[in-house]
């Protein structure tokens, strides 16, 4: 899968959707709920949620892989959790700034 910045992917096992913020520095498989994610227009699935990957995705959170640098933003929430090549991705904590606009 080519994880271009701005490309959108959806889970086949839940409602999660993500958008790629930063591409990985090597080829990886982006997964959600234990299954590879597919392009948003793709009609594949459904598949069953793998219990080990059912921690959930929270809309608006950014998920980051320290190993390959890939970063995605969850555009839609779902029951599956995001992983890369089987590695669960932690939430990247953003420092909240006072509103300036």
């Amino acid at each position: 899968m080519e994880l271009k910045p701005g490309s959108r992917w959806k889970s086949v096992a839940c409602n999660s959707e993500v958008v790629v913020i930063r591409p990985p520095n090597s080829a990886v498989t982006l997964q959600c709920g234990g299954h590879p994610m597919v392009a948003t227009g793709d009609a594949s699935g459904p598949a069953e949620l793998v219990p080990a990957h059912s921690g959930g995705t929270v809309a608006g959170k950014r998920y980051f892989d320290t190993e390959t640098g890939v970063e995605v933003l969850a555009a839609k929430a779902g029951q599956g959790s995001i992983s890369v090549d089987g590695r669960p991705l932690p939430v990247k904590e953003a420092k909240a700034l006072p509103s300036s606009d």
Partner: protein
Amino acid sequence: MELPLLLEMGADAFPDRAAIAGPAGPITLGALYERARGAAQWLLRQEGDKLVFIGLNGPQFPLALFAAGLSGRPFVPINYRLPDHDLRRLLARSAPAVAVVDAGMIARIAGVEGVTAITPEDFAAKAIAQDLADGDRAPLHETAILLFTSGTTGEPKAAVLRHTNLTSYVISTVEFMGAPDGDAALVSVPPYHIAGISAVLTNIYGGRRLVYLPAFSPESWIDLALAEQVTHAMVVPTMLDLILNMLEQRGERLPALRAISYGGGRMPLPTIERALKLLPQVDFVNAYGLTETSSTIAILGPDDHRAAFGSQEPAVRRRLGSVGRPLPILELEIRDEAGAVCAPGVAGEIHVRGAQVSGEYLGKSILTADGWFPTNDAGWLDEDGYLFVEGRLDDVIVRGGENISPGEIEDVLRLHPAVDDIAVLGLPDDRWGERVAAVIVLRADHDPAVDDLKQWVQTRLRSTKAPETWEFRDKLPYNDTGKVLRRMLKAELALTAPGN
């Protein structure tokens, strides 16, 4: 990542949340997204490759902004205050395009070739009338916004802001739907200013209801803030000063208001000090940024304001006149003319680098090979990383080889009891290259001697910084984002003021 996704996410997660206050009740996030998709469908069937906006602030502005993104067309807000001739020229440069134009302004742009004009009301009606079931998804355009810079010399340049510049700023500085229920942001900055655009994006993504004030006056600003229980507002310095006067006059204190951010020009110290005293419950944020950086790049936060205001230590106290610290998501450096990084306390040109920084105009990028944007603003950092902005590099006065910041002299003179408003600038001088000139608006019933004013500066700064030319006026010229038009004064004075 594209701008419309910021709205789509909110519409998906919180479709019933209020997005924009309206006379017939708020427009929800779900409704706004649906209308933006409808408007995009209509746009796709029109000639043109851009969407222009010429008009006052209002609910149709966010609609047009998101519809432009969804239809893959750059959005081009143009300053309606420009003289007809300039307005038409910028519009012609944006053709072929659809232009959303206030009904009262359509006659001004009649006959510009390649432009289909529609009023905001008709545009909104088109948005609702579309069938979304068989809607096309437009191929996306890399450019989200084209914004003409004020163009103090020559033809205005069109700054290019890409979707990635703007969305990276929003998602890394705003928590998605992080605003408590009921929060409302009062927008009185003009739609053709970068702050008017970032207000839409950050408040929609943060879940804060947008409240539009079409034309600013202190009375209408306060009335709307009260009526809509406004919690947040962004103002330029001149607006804040007028609002404070009116609050004092009316004995009003705006209990719902929790935060005011300001920017767009230098904030006079007496104004912000008065604001902190008058509205102790309000968090003040000074935001510094440029069009070419997708809005804010440095912030002086509420705690910084209170610490500086309450401190007797000069180094801490003076931070009230700073723009705070650079955002953690970008790099900022001060460089001298040779390009070397300056030590703390030493002024130079502010350079910035990061995902939100565009540094690009139509036809040319001015980023350095390694991605730095030279801002053309002069400034310096203190020992703790607080940034002090001295103004445009071209405004710095070079007198006999010494660099003098007009802002520093203005700050000192503003504290003089007879001075109501002030602009300091450099005039050509045969002996020194440039000399310091002060243009002053006096308070009523004050008539100080020039020597007294000169003495006031000399004892607080040094003698080379004391103005040698003094000019008195009834008022100073400002642009509508609160920047004093030094260049205009300079041109006038160069003709009238005596030589040496």
